[in-house]
């Protein structure tokens, strides 16, 4: 049974429907990439899973539990970690405080401490900057902090929303290396990425969305080599033609 399963899921931002019956699944221990051109609904997929936006239909389950209608904090408690787009850290708080916020739902202080040790082992640079204000850190460090914070709940699966956004190529390397490291340590990862090539490089499987619908799926390597996938990005797939 898949760890995360979406079947024919539709979602909207207010009156504008973005997802039209998207289906995908993530098995435990996999790295799955969700890619597609702008407007494909990649980030929207995460948002409907987390319960942030208007759910219109379809089935969503995680670890056997139904996600539909669940509050975000309940979803986190099920073991689903989420790193939103854009390096969202609490800029006025220190690294330590940010991480503590990540474990907000955990009452047991010992567990929180243990989680923090684990995150420091994964991200030594964060340990060095324990008391630094998050807002003063570099983009790459903030991305690490955002990931570390999401890991504080020791999730079974981590959802990464466009981790490469706004980062220099070198930092993108670092972030993806870290992701691979986490995957090798047993974490299930689903990432939505604009940088399709990089994402598919590290993915076991991938889904290509277009305008809120499934277009392609398959092993990462295959999609990487598929010309049709590349062509999708530059409008090779039809659409409204001039009537004049």
């Amino acid at each position: 049974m898949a760890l995360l399963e979406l079947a024919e899921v539709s979602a909207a931002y207010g009156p504008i429907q973005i997802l039209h019956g998207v289906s995908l699944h993530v098995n435990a221990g996999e790295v799955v990439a969700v890619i597609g051109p702008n407007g494909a609904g990649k980030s929207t997929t995460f948002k409907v899973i987390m319960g942030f936006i208007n759910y219109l239909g379809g089935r969503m389950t995680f670890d056997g539990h139904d996600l539909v209608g669940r509050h975000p904090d309940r979803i986190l408690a099920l073991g689903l970690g989420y790193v939103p787009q854009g390096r969202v850290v609490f800029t006025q708080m220190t690294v330590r405080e940010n991480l503590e916020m990540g474990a907000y739902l955990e009452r047991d202080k010992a567990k929180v401490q243990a989680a923090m040790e684990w995150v420091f082992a994964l991200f030594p640079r964060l340990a060095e900057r324990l008391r630094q204000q998050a807002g003063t850190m570099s983009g790459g460090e903030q991305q690490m902090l955002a990931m570390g914070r999401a890991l504080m709940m020791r999730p079974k699966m981590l959802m990464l929303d466009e981790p490469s956004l706004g980062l220099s190529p070198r930092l993108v390397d670092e972030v993806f290396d870290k992701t691979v490291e986490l995957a090798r340590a047993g974490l299930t990862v689903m990432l939505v990425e604009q940088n399709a090539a990089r994402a598919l490089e590290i993915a076991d499987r991938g889904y290509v969305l277009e305008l809120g619908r499934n277009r392609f799926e398959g092993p990462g390597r295959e999609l990487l080599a598929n010309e049709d996938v590349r062509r999708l990005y530059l409008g090779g797939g039809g659409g409204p033609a001039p009537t004049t």
Partner: protein
Amino acid sequence: MGPAPDEVILDVRDLRKAFGGVKAVDGASFAVPRGKISGLIGPNGSGKTTTFNLLTGVATPDSGQILYKGVDIAGLRPYQVFARGITRTFQITRVFREMTVLENMLSVTGLGLPDRVARERADELIAFVNLGHLRGEYGGRLSYGQQKLLEFARALMTDPDLILLDEPAAGVNRTLLQELLDQIHHLQEQGKTILIVEHDMNVIMNHCERIFVLDFGVKIAEGPPAAIQRDDRVIEAYFGRRRS
């Protein structure tokens, strides 16, 4: 190969704009041909939005020129850019909500027409976009699609020579999009120049005669749709490059 010099209506030369340390636009140059529909595209972070803001006067360039009909308009405020004969629409509609459709149309300046004539012109354009029955309704009560049409009609009040469209397809259903595109072609047939900034590749590839592609703040390619879709640099810009 670009258009002959006397056919250029907007000549952007070595435009630069940095925010803090980030070079959003880093020497962008392109020449928009008169009387055609052109597209300006680029992945997220390409500097496309900043360039658009520089063209419309919302931002002031650090250096470079924007020659409209041979005259440099770089650094002019939006109302001055408008007075030169360039109008723009907005990605998320910005109609005047507590004013009627007619009042929205009449808020435009520089008509140099007596009230009665201005009203007639407004009514003509309102009819052109099929909003005649909503003439006396508040802009805020219109549906999103109707607001897009109103904004479009409003931009045509002064009979501008150059129209800049900011993601006209955003949040718009297929039918309305077709309507808008038909009208855009209509305008082009009347001799107007249109520059579309868009994410929707189908719109760009199927309706633009010439396309300029930005990435990292510079133009990386230009040409007709067929050439752009095959251009490796463009594919790489959108799809991403594998780790070297």
